[in-house]
């Protein structure tokens, strides 16, 4: 054997050894890729935790039923290990440690809510484990230089930006300069809602709009009558509200009760607060920010169109999918695509593949910037029309025309 052959031989052995190490590291049992997630099965997020889990499960089942994912020429199925984080950050972080150290999970799916995601990311970063998350929208998740975090959803500051753009558009078509518009804001004092507020303020400033009310609702808000009375007296052109489901439910109930007349009302969380079911006609004309809608024209080859996903989901779980379920399913599709392109299971290879993601899913286009957030998908804006959510903005995906301005209460 010549020296040269010896070296290549040695190199090959070392390389094989290295490959052996990577496969041992990667959590693949036989022909099954194991993902892990801490999701709220109990506690205050348990409803949305259920939507999240249903989304993950549906995508996994669908992919498995289609024969699995082919990685490096071999077909693999997927499986998810779940633990209940009890809607508590500290518990979420513990469970992430457990998934990584005891269950040897090498690919994580996100929990529900920005708060839980914030608690878990430091753990996944420490062990350099990729996490694709679908329910942590807070802008602050993407300013800390995390390398292994990828989010398929639009971040919080984009939530209501399209409402401001829409108001400006309406003002222009009525022959008014958008800088004459007066905006009232009522945002809960929590990181997520404040992120949404920052986005709205940036946009309002860009159009030169004047902010006439800027209320921070206490976190344990139970009554909004004070700020709404102020809004009623000041008579702004737009009222923007964000305070999770509770804020949405409270705002619609009390705006109707107090007869606050405002031409445009935009908010977050209408659908998770189920305002149509709760208030019927009182919720009409409200604009609601949403990550996704079944009427959008996105497609993929796993679920088909957005509408197809809604049908499949409804047939399986008996209720129409909220966007929390849709984005969760999309996170699994992103993993499947990344495994396929990586052609191997080393976490660094998978991470690189995730970072290079560029795909369309039923949920929307997905492309991550260097901070890991999806920059290819806009938020959509619903309006409640005749007891249904209709997409009214952005114009490209609008299925209905916006009803504007909202008539006064004595004319409704």
């Amino acid at each position: 054997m010549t020296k040269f052959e010896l070296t290549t031989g040695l190199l090959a052995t070392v390389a094989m050894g290295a490959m052996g190490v990577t496969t041992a590291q990667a959590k693949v049992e036989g022909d099954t890729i194991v993902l892990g997630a801490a999701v709220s099965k109990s506690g205050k997020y348990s409803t949305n935790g259920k939507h999240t889990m249903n989304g993950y499960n549906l995508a996994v089942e669908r992919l498995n039923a289609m024969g699995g994912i082919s990685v490096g020429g071999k077909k693999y199925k997927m499986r998810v290990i779940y633990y209940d984080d009890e809607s508590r950050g500290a518990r979420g972080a513990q469970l992430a440690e457990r998934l990584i150290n005891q269950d040897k999970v090498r690919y994580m799916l996100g929990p529900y809510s920005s708060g839980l995601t914030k608690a878990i990311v430091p753990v996944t970063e420490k062990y350099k484990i990729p996490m694709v998350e679908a329910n942590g929208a807070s802008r602050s998740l993407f300013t800390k230089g995390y390398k292994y975090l990828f989010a398929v959803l639009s971040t919080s500051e984009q939530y209501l930006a399209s409402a401001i753009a829409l108001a400006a558009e309406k003002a222009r078509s009525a022959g008014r300069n958008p800088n004459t518009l007066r905006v009232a804001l009522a945002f809960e004092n929590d990181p997520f809602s404040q992120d949404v507020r920052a986005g709205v303020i940036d946009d309002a400033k860009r159009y030169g709009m004047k902010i006439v009310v800027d209320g921070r609702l206490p976190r344990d808000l139970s009554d909004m009558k004070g700020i709404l009375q102020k809004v009623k007296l000041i008579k702004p052109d737009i009222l923007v509200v964000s305070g999770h489901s509770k804020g949405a439910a409270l705002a619609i109930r009390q705006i109707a009760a107090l007869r606050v007349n405002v031409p445009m009302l935009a908010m977050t969380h209408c659908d998770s607060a189920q305002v149509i079911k709760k208030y019927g006609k009182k919720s009409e004309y409200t604009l609601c920010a949403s990550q996704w809608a079944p009427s959008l024209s996105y497609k993929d080859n796993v679920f088909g169109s957005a509408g197809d996903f809604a049908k499949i989901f409804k047939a399986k779980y008996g209720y129409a999918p909220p966007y929390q379920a849709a984005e969760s399913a999309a996170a699994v599709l992103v993993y499947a695509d990344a495994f396929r392109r990586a052609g191997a299971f080393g976490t660094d290879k998978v991470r690189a593949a995730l970072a290079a993601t560029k795909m369309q899913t039923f949920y929307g286009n997905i492309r991550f910037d260097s901070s890991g957030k999806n920059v290819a998908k806009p938020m959509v804006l619903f309006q409640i029309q005749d007891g249904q959510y209709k997409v009214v903005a952005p114009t490209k995906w609008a299925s209905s025309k916006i009803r504007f301005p909202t008539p006064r209460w004595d004319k409704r």
Partner: protein
Amino acid sequence: MIENIQLLAQNPVGLLNLIIDGIMIGAIFALIAYGMALVWGVMNIINLSQGEYVIFGGFLAFYVSTSWELQIGAIGLSISWPGIHALWALLLAPLVLYLIGWLFYRVVIFRIVNRDMFTSILATFGISILLQQFMNGVFTADDVVARHDMGTWLAWRTDVGELAIERVRMVALVFALIVGGVLSVYLKHTRDGQAIRAVAQNARAAELMGIDADRVYARTYALNAALCGAAGVLIAMTLTIHAFTGLIYTVRSFMIVIIAGLGNVTGVIVAGIGLGAGEKVAEVVIGTSYQVAFVTGLLLAVLLYRGIRLAMQRKYLA
């Protein structure tokens, strides 16, 4: 701040609306505080599960006012409920909560009546966690409202605005006043009420006079839960409820009792209503962000004032 005062000065109807709204929500808080004051005064227990009883009552209002079906396959049980007006829950919730209160007394509270306050705080905090998790599991983890179409009463319609008062808040105010009145008559003029007051003054002496203190305690504690249940119905009809939002009401009722001063029943109602109205006006004048700070500041001021007065009169030496 000055522009906010100007705004209210230019819109007296709006200011009035604000005050009336505050009074009405304050009346509901006063009901809860009334119960807390009762338990505190009679049994020397600060009941930290106050808010959870409120939320429980709210959930009952929700289930009374919506249609639902329950099927338990194992025993072939199938119930369907058509959903009736939420106000019926004002009858149901106090009854159910009275029973729950009684049950908790018999299982937990009787063990801690004569213990130090720290033990009772721990125990009632435990009950509150238990109830939270129970409601979260059995009911839902959603924000819930009791639907009703009682609408808004409009008056004073001028071009500057109108007075818009929710009818259900009027009901709440009237209900709170009636309950307050009935309770004070009950405490003063019935044998049972007198027994409660006797035990509050001196449990040992009352027992020597043949009063069964244990039964009085049970009744007091159950009565408190019933009051909270009724308040919960009104809260589900005016605001929203969630299994984990009970703490707001516990804290608020605690503040009201402190401001009113222990053992001052009329004071509780006045403080509850005044705090409600003051908070609403303060919210507009100094901004929503400082709403909580205002209430806490007021509490601090009252405590300081009391401390100073006490020091000057040296009453504690008496």
